[in-house]
Every structure is written in C-alpha cells, then in structure tokens.
C-alpha cells in the first residue's frame, strides 16, 4: 500500500468516537407530521416562497426560488399542505424564516425513474444540478452549480471528492460510501462531464477501510476511457477534510489565501453531494432528504438516519427513544466545528451532517483562564496563524486590529481551541475578531 496522503502544516488528532455509529446501516426515519423548511438553506440570499398558505404540495414541488444572486430552488420534502410561513429556530442565527408543511401521510409516494444522463449535454446536466436544489451538503452549503462553473481563465483538471469525514463522531458520509458507492461514482461521472475533464480523485481517511474498499471497487467498475476515477487513502488527521488541506494532500497544490480551489485547477465536492447530484440528474429526484448521524452518549439510540429536510430535532429525539440523563450539550454538526443548540425545535437543513447528544464526560465545560503563551495553538493551526495573539487582541478590546494576523484566513476548524490547555474559546474569539475587523 502507498503511504497515506496528508497535509503537512498543523492539525490534531482528537478521539475519533466513530465506533458508536460506523457499523449502523442508514435507516430511513418515518416522515414526521410536520416539517419546517428553512428558506435560507445555503450561502447567499434566502429563497422567496412561491406557494400560498393552505396550498397542497407534492413531494419535489418547488416551494421557493431565488430571484437574485447565488442560489437554488427549494423543494417540498414531502407531500402535504402549507401550514404557515413564519420563523423557525436556527442553530446559528437563532431564528430564520421558514415554510411549515403539514405532512399528508396518505399521499401516493413519489416515484423516480432512472434516466440516461449520458445523452444530455453538459449545460443540461448543469441545469439539472441547479434545479435539483443541490448545494454542498458536506457543510459549507455553497450552491454546487456555481462551483461547477469556474471562471474561464482558471482551467480545471481535477475533481476531488471529499470522503475524508475528519470530524469525530460523524459517519454519514462513511455509511453512504459503503452502501451507495455506485451512486457516488455515477455522480462523480456527471460532475466530470459537466466540467469537461477526465480525472477524479476520491480522498478517504484511512479509518474507514470498508468505505475505501467499496469505493475502490465502484471506482474501478465506473472508470472508462472517458472517466478516470481513483481512490486515495488519507492519513487520519483533523482537518483533513478541509478543502484547502485536502487539495494539498491529494495534489500537492496550495490554494492561495482568499482564492477558490479553481485557482489551482481543482473542484472539490463532498461524496454525499456527488450522490445527491446523481439523484437529481440520474433519477430526477430533487434534494429533499439527508443522511444525518445521530450520536453521542446522551441519546437512547445512536443511528445514521435518512431524514426529510425540515425534520425537527425533537422529532428525531422522540423517534430514537429520548435522551439519557446526563445529557449536557446538543451540537448540530461535528464536535469541532458544530454549533451548540439551546432549543430542540431546530429543523434539519441541507447542510446538517450530524446531531450530537453529548454527556459531561464527552465534553469539557471547565471555564477558561488566561493565555499562558504555551504556543500549542501555533503548532496546531493548519493555516499557520497565531490564534493566541488574536485571542489576546480580542480580550484587549482590539479585535478590529487583527486583520494583519490573518484572521480572515482562519476557517474555524477549532484545532487551536482543542489543544489549548487554558481551555480558551479561541474560535469564538476569532469569530468576534472577524466581525469587528470587517466592520472597521
């Protein structure tokens, strides 16, 4: 076996905690009685509703569109009646406008038929990706069709599928790679055709040997003279799945600060996004459901659930048998980059990859103390920044002066806060610094 690929600068290795769910097959969760579909699912302007109150909708009907800027249409995740257009709880923005659908459990289930996408032109495929409501569902939420239309002066030669899944606990991509390897490879071929290139590399962290085996087999079967798809095993190191780090690990190229991957001829998509692309283009099925890892010791039963977009966390908790005494923190997303939520009415969005129910022994809730200048954060930072300096500036009320320290190059992976012996909330300091430096 070849030596494992990785990025050289910084990085940490937190406990993986994936054993809880990595062996559990994807389990479709029954559709709850009510779905709250948030209008702003992706980066850019939120959708505008195009349905009226009390209107009947079928699964896959468009209920919101974007009139300006980046964006993709929003589809009804299930058949039912529009109950309300109000506000929903949101993990980051506390609340956000949404459409509430009362689900019609009697409705005829939607049927999707396989289409021969090979006959379509790249432009038609691209339109299919946009109309299917596809965004980067690995977490960033960037509209996929925009990523697939790079500026003309940056020729693309490599597509990288991100199967690193470097965040602890999360196994949603892992299970999809094991169970739906063929669909992911088919999605990769659609993406290659849109980009007009041949080469696709799928990067997977080495702690998922079954996923590597399944994807290698599917890639071999799916590769033709037109599409060259290969799997690369990556070293288990956080944040291996970060776009810039993954590109460096796989191609050796460094994306300049503030530039997009297209600057070095690369487009990166998550493996689950590739699968959604296949669903949208190959089956005509828009993005209305999501595989979400439900884990942590604070929930009765852990699972990799296939849930409808708009399913509330409280419905998931009820389905899995409730929480366990000792539950201390609920996090949407991974433990490194996710957001703690204070309200279980938060609905699942297209970018939700995990919901973690953590008990006191899984997290550290001790208060933080002063910076002792040990410099561990310098060694952990994959971007070569000095997180401690930014924290000290913020505490000294000089957050707006942190731009020369590279605060905007930080992508908030949390490696610094993870290693900090003083438990300093460095990511929060940096978010504050970004806000104030932007306002300056």
């Amino acid at each position, binding site marked *: 076996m070849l030596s494992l690929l990785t990025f050289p*600068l910084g990085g940490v290795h937190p406990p993986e905690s994936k054993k809880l769910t990595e062996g559990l097959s994807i389990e479709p969760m029954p559709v709850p009685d009510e779905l709250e579909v948030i209008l702003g699912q992706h980066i850019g302007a939120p959708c505008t509703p195009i349905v009226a109150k009390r209107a009947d909708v079928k699964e896959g009907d468009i209920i919101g569109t974007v009139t300006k800027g980046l964006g993709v249409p929003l589809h009804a995740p299930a058949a039912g009646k529009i109950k309300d257009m109000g506000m929903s709880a949101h993990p980051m923005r506390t609340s956000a406008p949404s459409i509430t659908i009362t689900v019609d459990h009697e409705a005829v289930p939607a049927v999707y038929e396989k289409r021969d996408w090979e006959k379509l032109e790249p432009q038609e495929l691209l339109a299919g990706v946009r109309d299917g409501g596809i965004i980067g569902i690995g977490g960033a939420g960037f509209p996929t069709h925009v990523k697939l239309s790079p500026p003309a002066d940056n020729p693309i030669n490599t597509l990288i599928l991100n199967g690193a899944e470097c965040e602890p606990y999360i196994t949603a991509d892992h299970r999809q790679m094991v169970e739906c390897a063929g669909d992911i490879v088919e999605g990769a071929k659609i993406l290659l055709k849109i980009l007009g290139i041949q080469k696709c590399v799928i990067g997977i962290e080495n702690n998922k040997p079954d996923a590597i085996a399944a994807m290698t087999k599917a890639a071999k079967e799916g590769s033709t003279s037109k599409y060259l798809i290969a799997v690369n095993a990556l070293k288990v190191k956080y944040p291996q799945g970060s776009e*810039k780090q993954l590109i460096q690990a796989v191609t050796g190229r*460094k*994306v*300049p*600060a*503030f*530039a997009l991957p297209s*600057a070095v001829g690369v487009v990166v998509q998550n493996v689950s996004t590739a699968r959604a692309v296949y669903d949208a283009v190959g089956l005509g099925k828009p993005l209305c459901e999501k595989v979400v890892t439900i884990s942590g010791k604070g929930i009765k039963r852990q699972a990799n659930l296939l849930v409808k977009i708009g399913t509330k966390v409280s419905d998931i908790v009820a389905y899995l048998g409730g929480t366990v005494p000792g539950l201390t923190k609920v996090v949407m997303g991974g433990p490194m980059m996710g957001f703690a939520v204070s309200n279980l009415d938060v609905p699942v969005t297209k970018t939700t990859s995990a919901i973690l129910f953590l008990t006191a022994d899984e997290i550290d809730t001790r208060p933080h*103390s*002063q*910076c*002792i*200048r*040990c*410099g561990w954060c*310098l*060694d952990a*930072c*994959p*971007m*070569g*920044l*000095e997180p*401690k300096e930014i924290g000290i500036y913020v505490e000294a009320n000089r957050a707006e002066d942190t731009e020369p320290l*590279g605060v905007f*190059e930080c992508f908030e992976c949390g490696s610094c806060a993870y290693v900090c012996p*003083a438990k300093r909330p460095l990511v929060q300091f940096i978010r504050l610094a970004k806000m104030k430096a932007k306002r300056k």
Partner: protein
Amino acid sequence: MWTVVACLVPPLIISVFIFGIQTLIITAVSVVSCVAVEAASQKLLGREVTIKDGSAVITGMLLAFVIPPGVSPLLPILAAVMAIYIGKHILGGIGYNFFNPALLGRAFLLATFPVAMTSAWLPPLQNGSIMKYIGGIDAVTTATPLAVMKEHGMAAFTKAFGSGGDMYLHFFLGWRPGCIGETSGLLILLGGLFLIYKGYTTWHIPVSILGTIALLSWAFGGKGYFTGDPLLAVLSGGALLGAFFMANDYVTCPTNKRSQIVYGIGIGALTVLIRLKGGYPEGICYAILLMNPLSPVFDGWFKPKRFAPPQGGAK
C-alpha cells in the same frame, strides 16, 4: 502542571541523599511559601485564587532547586514574595509575567544575600548519612566546580574533583557541590526527556542552549582555542536544569519554533560569556532572565509560516 512537578521529584529525592535532609526542608519551605504568597496575592488583588493549578508549586520547587543547600530557610520565604507577588501577580498573573518567577527569586537573593548565596554549599555526603546537618550548619567547607575552576584554574579543579570518567560519572549522577536541584544531570535529563516525550515541551530550547554552551565552551573555555571541555560545561552549574526546566517555561519563552532556537542560542552564549568573562562562576540564571523579556521581540521577528499567501502578494 502536575506532570512537571512529578518530573522534579526524582532530582529532589537524590538531592536529599547527596546533601542531606536540609534540602527537603528548604524545598518544603519554598513550596509552601510560594503557594501561600500566590493565594495571598490573588486575594489582595481581587482575583480568583488558582493555587490548585500547580504553577506556584512548580515555582516553589524550582526556586529551591537554584539556591544552595546550606542557606537559612528564611531565604526562600523572602524569595517567594519576590518571585510570586512582584514577579508574577503585580504584572497581571500567570501568562503576563515576563521574567521566570523562580529565577527572579534567585536573582533577588543573589543581590540581597550575596555571601550566603555564593558560599553556603555543602559537600556531598558519603554513606547516606542524610541527617548530618540537622541542628545547624557550622562550616562552609567547599565550593562549586565552576567557582573552583574560575578562581583557581583547572589544576585546582582536578585536585578537588578528579578527572576523566570518574569525575564525569560523579557529576552526571549529582555527587558534586551545587544548588539543591541542579546537580543530578541524569535525573534532570530523564525528567526533561519525559516532558518532551509527552509533548508538553519540545527539544528546540534545551538543544539550542546546551549545544551553544558546549560549542562555545569547547572553543573558548580552555587554555587555547578549541581545547575546552564541552561535556563538563554542560554537566556543571545549572545548565541542564536551566535548559530543561527554566528556559522553556511557557509564559516567558517565545512561542514560535524559530524564535525559540534564537532565544536558546542567546541564552547559551550569554551563559558562557558570564561563566568565562563575568563576575559570577555560573551565568545561566542571568542569561535566561536577560533573554526572557526579548521573547516577544523574537516572536515579532519570526512569524509562523502561513499556509499560502494571497494571490498577487499581500492584500
């Protein structure tokens, strides 16, 4: 923090066998007064009392380690006030002190009790009679190897401490006059290597200090150029203790690896300069104290390497 304390225990135990139970008393007084001064300072300044974090215990142990074993137990009490209250809490508490507190305490004692601090040495005991000095120390009977070498030259040194393998072995194990915790090179080295192995510290500072001391002592420490004894230079005085437990104190050393190496070379060079040309036989204490406030300067010179600069130069 407590791991560092654990690493300091073996040199303390061996010190009891070398110099007698007196060293344990001095160390205990030093630790207790450091913790007490820390608690009192934090109360006085209206801060949270954090004596449980172990940092005052480390300062207390290190402070005792760099004073001679034959001094009065009053000295560490005074030094603790200087180290913890003036050197640490007045400046803002842990993280904001720019001098190593323990060394500041030693420097204070050197200035205020110069005779005791430069002559209260005890000769190593034979046959493990560790209770020998209980009840009063009457005679100052010896001098440290570096002092003998400085004042009387190499011939006197050989007469007093022998030469060759036996001498190196004695020095490495700790059987020589010196400060309480600095003599056993072996145990200090083991403790330091353990901290590096555990990832609490890195090799950069100790290696650059000891390498510089060895190199410069070899070049300039003998009668002619390049005739000095680099091994002896590293094993004598407080070089090992300073390199592994003092200079790499998180708060007062630079954070960037490249600046750490420059800082280490600076400490090594100043140590040799003081040893060979200065007024004191040993210089690492002042060398570290002189380099401590330069740490932020070095960190300003050497920034970590960024992942990739923006396209077309800086924004």
